[in-house]
């Protein structure tokens, strides 16, 4: 059968159009899925974050998460604003040297009720270690019903005693298991925290004046 040149040209054109459409879609800003007014507000929020030297990725990620979970534009914007505020406060508490992961985890901790001063206290006793895992564990414990003060104090004490990331994750596993088994969340944390070994000797108390 003889191919018609006109049909061939049309098919080629259609293919080119589809290909160009697909590549345009691939390169499209993912925030385009957000309703226009809300998108404008998010863009302003991200510009503000850039100006303040804050990472914009957590804000953008939260917006995309909200879109995938079919949240309303209004709720997405409210949550994005909350993320922005908590990032700003976390940076103020931890200082400019905090890593992106630390900032993100610290912002989450602030959102579940940890105070800026408690966060600052943790940041000041870092001794070169990363705060990410203790903060991730802290946020989970508070979400599971451990009283906020008990959780922050316990994590802070373990942090000062030199607990490592694996200690914090082991503590989390133990507390989670106890809570599932019906234990009181606060009591479970205190009980499990006692079993975490001390990694550093307690600070030597200053000598008393004769």
């Amino acid at each position: 059968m003889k191919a018609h040149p006109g049909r061939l040209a049309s098919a080629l054109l259609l293919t080119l159009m589809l290909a160009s459409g697909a590549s345009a879609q691939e390169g499209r800003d993912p925030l385009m899925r957000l309703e226009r007014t809300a998108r404008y507000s998010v863009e302003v929020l991200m510009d503000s974050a850039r100006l303040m030297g804050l990472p914009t990725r957590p804000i953008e990620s939260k917006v995309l998460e909200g879109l995938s979970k079919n949240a309303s534009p209004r709720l997405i914007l409210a949550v994005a604003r909350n993320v922005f505020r908590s990032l700003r406060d976390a940076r103020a508490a931890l200082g400019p040297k905090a890593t992106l992961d630390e900032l993100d985890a610290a912002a989450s901790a602030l959102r579940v009720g940890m105070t800026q001063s408690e966060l600052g206290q943790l940041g000041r006793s870092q001794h070169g270690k990363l705060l990410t895992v203790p903060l991730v564990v802290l946020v989970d414990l508070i979400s599971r019903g451990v009283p906020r003060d008990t959780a922050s104090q316990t994590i802070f004490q373990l942090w000062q005693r030199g607990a490592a990331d694996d200690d914090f994750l082991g503590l989390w596993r133990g507390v989670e298991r106890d809570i599932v088994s019906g234990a009181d969340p606060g009591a479970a944390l205190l009980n499990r925290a006692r079993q975490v070994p001390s990694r550093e000797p307690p600070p030597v108390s200053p000598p008393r004046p004769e």
Partner: protein
Amino acid sequence: MADSKQHATAIAVSLALLTTTGEHAVAQNASELEARLQAGAMMSTRRGNPLPLNALALTPGIRYADRRFSVSASGEAWLNGERWELGSSAAAFQAQTPLLHGVRAEVLANATRRFVDPSLQNDQLDAEGRVHFMRQRGGVWLGSGVARPLRVSTVTNVNVNSGGVWTRLGSTTLRGSVTSFFFTKLASPDTIEETVPCTAQLDAAQPLAPTGTGMAAIQSSNPGCRHQSRLTDLEASVRWQHRLLELTVRGGQRFGNSFDVTPESRQWASGQAAFWVSSQVAAVAGGGKEPAQPTRGLPARSFGSLGLMLAYWPIPRGVVPVATPASLINAFELRPAGTAVQRITARIGGVESVEIMGDFSDWTALPLIRRGRDQWELLVPMSAGVHHINLRIDRGQWIAPPGMPTMKDGFNGEVGVLVIKP
């Protein structure tokens, strides 16, 4: 004609078509609706009363479960020749209290109909209360209850006391239980099947009449005579699951005097294996020995089965509001699979699709690939650092995968928080 040693042997060759509508379909309040229909061919023989080899069984069942209670019903219908007959069936109710300091109370009530063959079948109502002490990987329980067999002229109420222990070691579940039965038997011609005479009126040394004639004579001379029966079952089971293979082995020992426990019911053992050829086809084989149920007048029996399970699929979504129960997920793991790549593996049985999403995918859902009946896998580019991740089953609700810290997502849900070290 009945034999003195009533012995039923059933060989089931079942080609099962299991259409499951709503296997673990869970409503937003964690309620659960499950319905199933099983069709199969079965052959069974019992001495003196064979069941046709071409009998076909349909087994529909439905179950609704909430956090506090569950109700279920199941039945079995037999195509016997050209006529349908009702086989075994059951209706059950179970209610439980919330878990408090690892302790939970439970009430169970059942109405069951047992069908051995067209000439041997009866009904029973029973209720039991249990107290469980549960930990993450094991637990113990104690229970007490009463059962009322119907259409069994030889038995009054049955007092049942039970206790048990279970533990889970990796993919193996071990279970042990002790159950004691205490009941009164009325001497009647039917009791000869269990060789339980009215001892108060009988010389123990006197051999029992193998036919109904002797017993009828005893009963006619002592119409009110009764026998107090007591027997205890000790049973253990092991269930092991590895990739495509499921094995279940159980065995038991019955204690009681010779009037209550026939020799063939002293010990029993059985096993069953299922090998999943694909996600929807499994070869099933099993066999063993089951003890008698003297409270219901059902004899001990040996059985063997060989079958092929052909299909298994969940409810069309949208019929029931669906959420994902974390309890469906038997395992969820991430392992490094190269530079900045993680291999996600999950063991989730009886579902059609598993998806994940997170910041690493710009919150686009990524379907996991089925690698076996309950094995799912996906390679995901994921750099070192903190990542937020969600998982969903059968396009249900997004949940945090088990085994990792979680946090609220701000959208009335939760995300899992992964920390991947450099």
